[in-house]
Structure formats: C-alpha cells, structure tokens
C-alpha cells in the first residue's frame, strides 16, 4: 500500500519551497526588453524583401481564393451575374474581374475602381467604371465583383479595348435605338452630320423608297424641322404623312418629297 510508504513530509515541503522560488525567480528575472538582433543592412534589406514577397504571395493567394469561390458559387447555383446583388463601386474600391475557363478554373485580375463616367462605344452610350488596368482579352466576358461578392460591373468590348460597365448602363444600352428601329421598319441606314441626315441605304419596299428617297440624299429638314440628332428622325417611325426637304448631289436647289401616310388596314 502506498499509504504505508513513509512520505518524507519535510522533503516535500522543501521541494515545494524550491519550486515556488523557481517560479517567482523565473517571473521576476524574465527579460522585459526584447533585444534588437544584430543584423547588417544587407540582411535587413533581405528580410524586408522576404516579408514583402510573403505579403505579395498572401495577397495573390487571397484574390485567387476569392476568384475560385465566386466561380464555384456561380457554377453551383447556375447563377448568371444578374442573380448576384449589384453594388456600384466606390472610387478606389478593389474589383475582382473573374471569368471561368471551360475547365472551371478562374481567370482573374484585380483593379481598383476609378469612378463611373459616360462613354461612347460605337453607337452606344455606356456607363464606364474606370479601372487602373488595361483589361486583357482573356477577360472579355468577365464579371467585376467587389470583395463582398456583389457584382460591381460587367466587362464588355468597346472598340478594340475592353471596359467595365455597370449592369444598369448595359441594360440601358441594350435598348433599341431609333437607328435600330428605322433599320427594322424602313431598311434605313443614315449618318447625321452637318445638320443633315445622309442616307446610306433605304429599304426596297419602304414608303421612303416609294416616295423617291435614294442613297446619297441629305435630309436637311423633316416636317420643316432641322435634323441635328437621330431623335429628329423619330416621326418616320409613325404612320402619318411626312414632308422631307432633300439636298441631292449635283442638284442646285433642295427639293421636297412627300412621304404618304400608311393606310390603316380596312
């Protein structure tokens, strides 16, 4: 039995005192100042570089992880960008441009938002979110996310470059313009310049053609109103009678063409 073993109480008491002394001395003698290690300037520079490399590596891994998450999330939910909440990016805010490859691997780039401005892309006017990078072709159909996972914009082609536009701006831009509608109704293609609409093409069966409008004509007035913008040609979309003042090449004076009204179906 252990209880029968004589336990030398005195020795235990002495050992307890020794243990206490060790602990108290250890706490009291603990070095309080952190000694500055001896390092040469080149060593300090090398360590700084190492720390910076590590920071960069961590940042890259952070964004890569975010991009993977976003691609996985949208693929798992079969979600298109309009299913994500949209938040207009503040100036200086990070945006992650993410596009998924066929393999499911993300292609990504990081940029900061530099304000929203109106910009013209061919015949469309878009809301452009400024970026601090030139967007590569591999991100042609990318979605711009902020770091909370909200959609901040969409990458679209604008001439030979790519820009980030807001989903709202893209929706507005995708609405049919007067130009599109005139092509649909009358096969009419034109260019507005110098207070006139120069006719490029006109549909064979259109009432304009029947009234005598030809490619190369310059429409200088419509119902007596001058032509300064596409919207001035809007009456052509209606069905009423229209008077066009036409300036034709090699003709000295402008002539007036009467476009008859469309007959209402009986």
């Amino acid at each position, binding site marked *: *039995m*252990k*209880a029968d073993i004589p*336990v030398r109480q005195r020795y*235990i008491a002495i*050992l*307890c005192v*020794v*243990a*206490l002394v*060790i*602990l108290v001395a*250890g*706490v009291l*003698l*603990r*070095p309080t*100042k*952190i*000694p*500055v*290690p*001896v*390092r040469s300037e080149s060593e300090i520079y*090398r*360590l700084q570089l*190492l*720390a910076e490399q*590590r920071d960069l590596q961590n940042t890259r891994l952070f964004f890569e992880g975010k991009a993977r998450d976003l691609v996985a999330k949208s693929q798992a939910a079969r979600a298109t960008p309009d299913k994500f909440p949209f938040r207009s990016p503040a100036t200086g805010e990070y945006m992650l441009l993410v596009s998924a490859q066929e393999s499911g691997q993300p292609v990504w780039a990081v940029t900061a938002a530099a304000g929203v401005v109106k910009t013209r892309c061919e015949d469309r006017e878009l809301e452009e979110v400024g970026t601090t990078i030139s967007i590569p072709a591999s991100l042609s159909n990318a979605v711009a996310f902020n770091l909370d996972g909200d959609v901040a914009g969409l990458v679209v082609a604008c001439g030979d470059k790519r820009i980030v536009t807001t989903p709202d701006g893209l929706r507005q831009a995708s609405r049919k313009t007067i130009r599109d509608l005139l092509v649909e109704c009358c096969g009419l293609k034109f260019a507005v310049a110098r207070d006139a609409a120069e006719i490029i093409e006109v549909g064979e069966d259109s009432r304009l053609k029947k009234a005598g409008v030809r490619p190369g004509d310059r429409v200088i007035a419509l119902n007596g109103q001058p032509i300064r913008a596409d919207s001035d040609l809007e009456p052509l979309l209606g069905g009423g009678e229209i008077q066009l003042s036409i300036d034709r090449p090699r003709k000295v004076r402008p002539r007036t063409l009467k476009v008859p009204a469309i007959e209402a179906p009986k």
Partner: protein
Amino acid sequence: MNELASLGFILLFALFAGHVGKLLRIPEVTGYIGAGIVVGPYVFGWISHDNLETLAVFSEVALGLILFSIGSVFEFGRMRATGGTIAVITLIESGLAATLVTGGMLIAGQSWAVALLLGAIAIETAAASTLMVMRECNSQGPLTETLTGVIGINNVLCLLAFSLVAAGLQLTGGLVDPSDWYALYSAIYPLVWQIAGSLALGFLVGVLLALWSKHVVEKGETLILLTGCVLLCVGVSHVLGLSPLIASLGVGATMVNLSAESRRLFQALGQTDPPLYAIFFVIAGADLNIKLLTTIGVLGAIYVAGRLGGKLAGPWLATRKTNLPQAVRKSLGLAMLSQAGLAIGLTITIGHRFPEIAPVVNTIVLASVVIFELIGPLSAKMALARSGEIRAQPPLTDHSF
C-alpha cells in the same frame, strides 16, 4: 455552424468514424483523425477555422489530461527498475532520428539552422495518439510499459533539444551580439525557464492534487478536483510562458509518487474522458492540411525517411543488450512513429524566433505530420499486436443504477 452544433457534430461524427475504424480494423484514433480531415476546413469545410479556434480550448484540456496520464509512468519504484533502460532507449532513438534528419538536410544543401531545427523536431513522438492506441487495445506488458516511459521522456527531450538548438543558433548565428549580456541572457532564458519552470509548476500542482485527493471520496468530486488541477496547470503554464505538456507530465509524476489515491484517480479519469479525447483527435485531424502533402518535395521526403530510420532502428539498437523479449525489441520502434502536438507547437515558435527560415521548416514539418499522424496509430497498433499485448476490453461494471 455555431460552436455548440459543431461540437455535437464532431462527437457524433467521431463515434461514427470509430465504428468504421473498428470495421476496417484500424485504430479508433486513425478513424477520428480521418474524420477530422474530412469535416475540416481543408476538405468539406463543415468545421471552419473559426470553429477550430474556439474549440482549441478542448484540445488544450485533452492534451493536459493525456500528459497527466503519461506522468503516472514515472513512479519511483518503477523507474528504479526500468528507468535506466528507458532513458537509454529514448536517448538513442531520439539521437538517431535527429542525426539522420540533420545529416540528410545538410547533404541536401540546407543551412545548419534548418537542419538542426528539423533534427530537434524529429525527436518528438506524439504522446496523445500513441497512448490512445494503447488504451483502445487495453494493452499490458513490457512493450506498453517501456513505450509509455519512453514517450514521457521523449517529449521532454525534444523540448530540451529544441531549446538548446534555438539558443545555440541565436548565439552563433549572429542574431545576438555576444558582447551584449542582456541579449545573451534573453537567448538562454527560455531554455532554462521552459524546463525548470514547467517542472516546478507541475510539482506544485501535483502536491496540491495529492494532498486534496485524500479528502475526496466521491467519483464526481474526484473528477472535479482532477480536471480543476489540470486546467489550472495548463492555464498557468500559458500565462507564465511555460510548456503545458511538461507541466502536466509533472503533475502526473508527482501525483503518482505522493498519493495513495493515484490509482483511483487515474481510473476515474479513464472512465470519463473519451468524449474529450474524441473531440481532441477530430480537431487535430481537422487542423491537418492534407493539401500540404503535395508540397512535401525532396526535403520533406528526406525528413520522413530520416525520422522513420531513426525511430525504427534506434529502439532496436538500444534494446539489443537488454532482457526485453525479442517481440518487444522488434516492435518498439514501430510504435513510436506518430508525430503531432509538440512538433506543431514548435513550428509556431520558429515562426516567431526565426522568421527567415520558418517557411522551409514549417512546410516540411506540417506536411510530414500529416503522414506520421495517419500511419503512426496504425503502426502502433500493429506493434502491440505483434508483441501479443492486446487484451480484450473488460466489461463495463460501473452501472449508474
């Protein structure tokens, strides 16, 4: 998932994994660790990093209790009989593992700092998983006795070697100006404080436990006393910057030598701690980043091979002249392959004290821990089976009503 739900989930999943482990005839510990890897943030992510951080307190308590149990091996009577053999075995197996890893790293062109630190870490054998396999197998015999003793000393030796290497590197590596006495003192202080302070704290808490246990009769009260003392020991260790492992080991060693109640206490502990251990191993598994295996590279392979060589050959060499049975001599090394807790803890220290070499050392250690934690319990069970020390579990007699 919130912390309580994740805790419940961990326990139930651990139980399920334990059943699967039994079906596959692998140790429950491997099942728990495997389950942890699956539910952890690196595979399915059902348990997040935040959950793990909050639940870390359970790991601390469980590790404290495990080391406390191991401390019971250091009974004077037993140590007088087998202490010499155990010390020799530990020194040789640790020394060989450290030498092989250090040598391999130097041949591979690594600096002395990287090679020595990895050599020191290679010494460690995970106490928790090895002890749990012995418990699960209800093993008894010379291998179990020797193994428990070796693991106890091994962890102290690993910490001592690491502290020595770290202080030596700071002194010789130009990180400390030898003429600056204060800087010199700051480098040596942790070496002495971690060992002497931890043992002193363990002794004091052990005396408190031994004296109080004489007046505690009920099983419930016994458990309160025991858990309270281990928590106090682990908590104070953290406050004072000591090693909770060595301090808990000290509590167990003091208790077993001073109290006649020690057997009752260790029995009470054995009947109530399984949920805590299940949580501990699932959390340990969830913390293992399985993806690191792809980064192990040539240096990692050298580390694994060096440590395997040392751990397998060391005990065999050390026990050649002893009267241990042949089966034990052949199996001891096989039972000592696990590596986890202390090694992971030391990587954090390296991050603070040697930031410039930390990425290399930590990647190698953390990747190889994944390997050793998966094969360690399996090989330990195999060793116990080979030496014929596995016993059937006794029937439960502790009925509640």
